[in-house]
């Protein structure tokens, strides 16, 4: 589904993408390789939405957060596996990291089991496990650690025993030299190093102690133990350990396909759980995906609902039934723009396999969504006026319009002369209708729907005289009063002018009453 930057911002698509962001690299990789559902993908989209709705019901919301936390903590085994497949030698840190991957999947499975509520017989698929890799590493794993245990190589135990013996012999010989130094000089070596003050001892040093620096007042010396047997034992152990690592790496390589499959499953799970978390926060429905309508009841536009909630205000759910093109009129602050955005948002949800946040929804899988109205940052960068920007977007929208497009028009041509603006809007609506596009056209111009021959919807608007008696002390109080007085429902419009309730709102928003009264008089005279 194509939506340019301005459209994505207006319909909350950016917000939706952020809300659906995977928590881990597997999920990000999964999402990078997926395109949104488009026309023809209805069955797959509906299946995914149904799966998300079912999981949202089966999983405890706090449990979902814990599962996602466990997903975030799964380390990436890819680089180690790639090196294994390329025949590189692996290190013990690599084996440890693979063990961490195994443990992280176990933790994920535990979190999943803890999140699952009792339900019908068909249990949702559990997160992936990598039992083969677990078995390969098992001999070296204890309490999350990894050690290249003796069991990994037939010669390891003997080689280690030989080195331990040689080290003990080395230490004994070193200690014997240190004791001779102590006896001769009275000095204990720190590590292998010691200093002898000439005023304390200035004679020859014992065998095995070598002077590395001399001054008139002291000598610095080191203890050196030549121990070819220890060196040989170390070399033999190195050979055995490298052989064990090589064999272990080959066994790991044989598990790489299973691990790769597990990481793909993790990506899909991350993708799905992002949608489940969204659906639990913004409950939705299994939408019907139809070709002929964009309709929903009691829908929420979450970006607005969230913004209102932070200000202590309540969002009013919307219902809409759009078949083709319709004009939407109504008062200022009545929610026309929000209705447009909600329509786009719900269609975007369907395209992304997300249950649309509505009680019921019948949506069309779109190829593109276009928003026309107001300036976008790129318009300002192109030095276009508001009107010019709208016309350019209208031109581009018409060029791409089809029955798989949704065009959302928010007060097109409001910044030009009303007569020409209205005429242009009517012609534009007709052109959209001819192309078979879905379109919702919000406007204050009168008679657009009737002239263009499309349905006319309107926001029910302010309850009669609801605001006249209200005296708001400040802007917040005014907004509360407007919210309480406004009927945000979308209904079929009555014949006549497109009301705006502009003067009542201006008064409540604090404009000088004399100005408002003068405007009312002028309006009534006209």
């Amino acid at each position, binding site marked *: 589904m194509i939506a340019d930057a301005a459209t994505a911002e207006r319909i909350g698509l950016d917000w939706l993408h952020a809300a659906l962001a995977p928590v881990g690299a597997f999920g990000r990789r999964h999402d990078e390789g997926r395109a949104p559902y488009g026309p023809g993908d209805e069955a797959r989209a509906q299946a995914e939405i149904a799966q998300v709705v079912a999981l949202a019901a089966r999983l405890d919301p706090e449990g979902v957060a814990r599962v996602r936390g466990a997903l975030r903590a799964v380390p990436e085994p890819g680089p180690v596996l790639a090196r294994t497949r390329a025949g590189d030698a692996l*290190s*013990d*840190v690599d*084996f*440890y*990291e693979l063990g*961490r991957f195994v443990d992280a999947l176990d933790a994920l499975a535990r979190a999943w089991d803890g999140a699952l509520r009792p339900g019908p017989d068909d249990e949702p698929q559990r997160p992936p496990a990598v039992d083969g890799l677990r078995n390969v590493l098992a001999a070296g794993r204890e309490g*999350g*650690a*990894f*050690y*290249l245990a003796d069991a990994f190589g037939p010669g390891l135990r003997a080689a*280690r025993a030989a*080195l*331990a013996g040689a*080290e003990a012999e080395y*230490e004994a010989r070193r200690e014997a030299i240190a004791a001779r130094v*102590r006896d*001769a*000089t*009275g*000095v*204990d*070596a*720190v*590590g*292998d*190093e*010691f*200093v*002898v*003050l000439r005023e*304390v*001892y200035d004679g020859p040093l014992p065998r095995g102690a070598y002077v*590395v*620096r001399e*001054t008139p*007042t*002291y000598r*610095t010396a080191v203890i050196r133990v030549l121990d070819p047997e220890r060196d040989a034992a*170390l070399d033999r*152990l*190195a050979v055995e*350990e*490298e052989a064990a*690592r090589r064999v272990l790496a080959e066994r790991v390589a044989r598990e790489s396909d299973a691990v790769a499959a597990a990481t793909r499953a993790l990506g899909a799970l991350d993708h799905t759980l992002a949608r489940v978390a969204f659906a639990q926060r913004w409950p939705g429905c299994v939408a019907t995906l139809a070709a002929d309508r964009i309709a929903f009841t009691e829908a929420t536009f979450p970006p607005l609902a969230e913004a209102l909630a932070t200000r202590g205000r309540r969002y009013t759910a919307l219902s809409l039934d759009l078949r083709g093109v319709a004009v939407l009129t109504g008062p200022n602050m009545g929610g026309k723009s929000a209705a447009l955005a909600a329509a786009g948002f719900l269609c975007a949800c369907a395209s992304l396999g997300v249950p649309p946040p509505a009680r019921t929804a019948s949506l069309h899988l779109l190829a593109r969504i276009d928003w026309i109205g107001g300036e976008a940052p790129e318009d300002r960068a192109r030095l276009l006026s508001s009107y010019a920007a709208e016309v350019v977007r209208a031109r581009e929208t018409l060029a791409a319009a089809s029955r798989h497009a949704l065009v959302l028009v928010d007060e097109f041509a409001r910044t030009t002369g009303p007569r020409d603006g209205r005429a242009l809007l009517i012609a534009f609506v007709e052109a959209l209708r001819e192309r078979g596009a879905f379109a919702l056209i919000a406007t204050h111009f009168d008679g657009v729907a009737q002239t263009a021959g499309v349905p006319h919807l309107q926001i029910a608007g302010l309850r009669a005289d609801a605001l006249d008696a209200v005296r708001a002390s400040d802007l917040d109080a005014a907004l509360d009063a407007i919210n309480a007085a406004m009927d945000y429902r979308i209904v079929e419009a009555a014949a006549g002018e497109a009301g705006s309730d502009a003067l009542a709102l201006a008064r409540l928003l604090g404009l000088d009453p004399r100005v408002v009264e003068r405007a009312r008089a002028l309006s009534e005279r006209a």
Partner: protein
Amino acid sequence: MPRSSTSTSASEALFALAFAHAPSAIVVGTAKNVGKTTVFNALRAVALRRGIALAVTSIGRDGEAADALDGEAKPRVRLTPGTLVALAAGLVPRTPALAILGSGAESALGATVFARVVLPTTCEIAGPPTAAAMRATIARLRGLGGGPVLVDGAIDRIAALAGGDDAVIVATGAASGATIARVAAVAAETVARLTIPGRDPRAERARVVYVAGALDAADAELLLADARGATVVIEDPTRIAVRGALFAALRDAVDLRCERPLRVVACTTSPVGRERALAPRALVEAVARATGLPAFDVVADLAA
């Protein structure tokens, strides 16, 4: 029989000072090649003798066979079985194998790896590169081992001391000055910087100036011009980036305080430099006098 100069007594005394009141100690140097790693090894030897499971790491890259700059031999870090160590993944010895217990912050040499030594091994140690990562590393070592943690510090990464409750040991030596007097003066300035006292609201002057971030030469000149007599508060002593006469002038002109003081417990001396050697006894005594802290030469077994 010559007069005894057993090195264990100086090392033992230094160990007792380092871990008497802190679960971790960091050895920092006033310059390169002032015997930090030697002190580090001496403290480890004490732990070994006492049967204490010491965990070790390093702020810089230490334990390499030869100095990276001049190629001269450097003390190696020989780790005994049971030792817990945090080091960069790229430095984990392949033989004999270590038990890998965990991994953490990334550095240029790979992730920081937490490991336990199974068979004796000699290796380089390089810990994490940032102060925050070092603090996390020390905490994790303490969590894994439960014993004290010893950190081999670095001259140019003193910021890693910030925010910790470690005991700080300042290593100095002939590499930091041509004469005993110069070495002692450098040590005294380092200690003076690291021991900026904490805030005391009862003793603050009428004017209090807070310096966020590093206090550099430009800040110092501004304070000398505009804030003489004031209490100047910095976050912690590692934020002081001024040296020499400018630092001395600042310290004399203002009441310099910090939010999080450090606990410097001792100095150590190394009389041996690349180009010169100083008298061990005179050096350790001069450093103790100049810094007002106990001073030790763990190799020559001297204390003052």
